[in-house]
């Protein structure tokens, strides 16, 4: 027993010393759920950098309604199973709102968990249409939807004068949704034909077999709706085959690594539809933010989705400030009804009843010979 006491009390004292202060309710906790590991880890890590920076900003300016803001991040690994665990963990940590996450299928796995716990969720990269068609009261997103993206993609294909289009997706809910959305719009258009429509397996290295098959249908443009790692490989292997068909991508191909993977020569001329890049944002808020980010991390933000996560964080903190409360129902009501033209990093932000962002966001970009993304007029 003596031995027990000798061990137990020092341990108890130690644990009291190390544990956070008991009255830690003085902070406003905002969760971040993002892919910190896994195939999209670079996205998630940048999301965290953005949120840390913005939180520090608020805290150094006196906090939010007199309280410090604390960002609690959880890793979803870009995997739906992992994400539901991360979401469950976040709900136990007293967060008011959760920012994230990137992929639509990952977000979808967590929507109900947050909704049941009445926690606000603001997705930053999940563009699949059905996410906001479920009537969830606490779900918002700062990124646009795939029907708008599909419309812009289809119009661009038509405008560039392509007649026979091959569409490839990767079977994720985002890519498949965008692919069928665009296919539907293209079929209705006069003089445009979809000659090929199929899914590839993401995560592989060799897409020669697929490209050979697509080539046999002799399309005059390919539209790939998946993510940048595969898009880069497709571009590279297409060029190695000596095939110079125009190639277009959805907004998940918007990442500097695309050019790294494909190489400048193969990436040249690649079109993609995307929300504007951080460097092309011309609001004063954005310029100020990019400058601060540059100073803190030594480079400009790479990913628009990380910036959109920042916007998610900013609308939530704005709502908390305006309503002077952390009651999620009040915050949700404010975001739905009262927020009007909030100056976000990526432009003006308002939400409709479904929690979707209002307004046109998408632009068309093309890669030039130096591998830079150039905004098309």
């Amino acid at each position: 027993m003596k031995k027990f006491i000798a061990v137990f009390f020092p341990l108890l004292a130690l644990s009291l010393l190390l544990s956070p202060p008991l009255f830690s309710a003085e902070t406003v906790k905002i969760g971040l759920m993002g892919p910190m590991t896994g195939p999209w880890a670079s996205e998630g890590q940048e999301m965290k950098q953005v949120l840390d920076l913005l939180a520090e900003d608020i805290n150094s300016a006196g906090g939010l309604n007199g309280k410090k803001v604390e960002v609690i991040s959880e890793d979803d690994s870009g995997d739906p199973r992992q994400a539901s665990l991360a979401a469950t963990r976040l709900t136990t940590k007293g967060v008011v709102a959760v920012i994230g996450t990137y992929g639509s299928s990952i977000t979808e796995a967590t929507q109900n968990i947050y909704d049941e716990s009445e926690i606000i969720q603001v997705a930053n990269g999940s563009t699949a249409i059905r996410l906001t068609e479920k009537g969830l009261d606490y779900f918002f997103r700062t990124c646009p939807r795939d029907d708008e993206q599909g419309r812009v993609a289809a119009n661009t294909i038509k405008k560039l004068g392509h007649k026979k289009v091959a569409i490839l997706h990767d079977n994720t809910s985002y890519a498949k949704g965008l692919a069928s959305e665009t296919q539907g719009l293209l079929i209705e258009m006069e003089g445009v034909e979809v000659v090929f429509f199929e899914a590839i397996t993401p995560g592989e290295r060799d897409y020669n077999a697929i490209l050979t098959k697509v080539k046999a249908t002799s399309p005059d443009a390919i539209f790939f709706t998946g993510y940048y790692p595969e898009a880069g490989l497709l571009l590279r292997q297409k060029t190695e085959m000596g095939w110079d068909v125009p190639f277009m991508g959805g907004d998940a191909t918007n990442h500097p690594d695309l050019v790294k993977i494909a190489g400048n020569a193969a990436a040249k001329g690649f079109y993609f539809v995307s929300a504007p890049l951080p460097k092309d944002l011309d609001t004063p808020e954005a310029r100020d933010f990019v400058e601060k980010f540059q100073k803190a991390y030594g480079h400009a933000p790479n990913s628009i989705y990380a910036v959109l996560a920042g916007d998610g964080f900013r609308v939530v903190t704005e709502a908390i400030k305006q309503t002077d409360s952390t009651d999620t129902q009040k915050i949700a009501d404010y975001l739905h009804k009262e927020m009007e033209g909030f100056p976000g990093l990526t432009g003006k932000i308002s939400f409709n009843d479904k929690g979707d962002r209002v307004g046109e966001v998408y632009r068309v970009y093309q890669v030039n010979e130096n591998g830079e993304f150039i905004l098309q007029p």
Partner: protein
Amino acid sequence: MEQFFQQLTNGLAVGGIYALIALGYTMVYGVLKLINFAHGDLFTIGSYLGLTLLTSMALTDKLGPFFGILLLAVMVMILVGIVGILLDQVAYRPLRESPRLSAVVSALGASIFFQNTIMLIYGASFHVYPQNILPRMVVNVFGLHIPMIRILVLLASVVMMLALYTFIQKTTIGTAIRAAAEDQGAAKLMGIDVNGVIMIVFFIGPALGGAAGLMVGLYYGQVNFTMGWIYGLKAFTAAILGGIGNIPGAMVGGILLGVIEALGAAYISIAWKDAIAFLVLILILIVRPTGLLGERVAEKI
């Protein structure tokens, strides 16, 4: 018809790489009856080490592309081989007498450990091999466009496989490995240093996996820390297809799997490519439960 042959070459190139990785699974299984799930990550380590050595030592500038890559390959193989031995010493050796399931769990743990270590060292974003180290020539054979590098990849894997086969069949050490695979207890009684044999196996298998990693890096240009998972899974399938524990089986299984995938994608459906490959695997296992060239009875894992 032209498309058929084009797809065949696509499949052969992928299959050659599957085969090289499959050899690592099959050798370890042959001797230890253990599926080394960390093998896919040793493959990733190979591709990252190749990248680091290539960019830091500028071998191809000093020695020309051919000898530069050759020396690079030797260095990568030795280093990954050493990692393989360390893996065995740390993760498997202490469990040699434990139930086999413990070692499998340890293998899965080692896989996660390697993957995250690579991520922490190199970061999560993609890494790219410098371009134009290898001449990007395209050879025209009977109207088929075959990139030179694809022929080289296939050739290199075949040469390595033949070298391994000769080594296993003709040398004393090879005989010792075969003996240990046959019956460890009896091999010990015959004076074979079974622990030494295991060490050699854990050197050769990972070394070949590392070489495959280097080839994937050179050929596809892009590496990231999760790439070992899919390649590992496919190579494991290839090893089962050919008969796990059997070295020619791994070679045949790898090449066959690559070709089935390419032709399945070409003539049936791209999205069903993997399903087709696994369907073929199931059919072959129904007819030949030990795989195409397997002799021993397959044991459950």
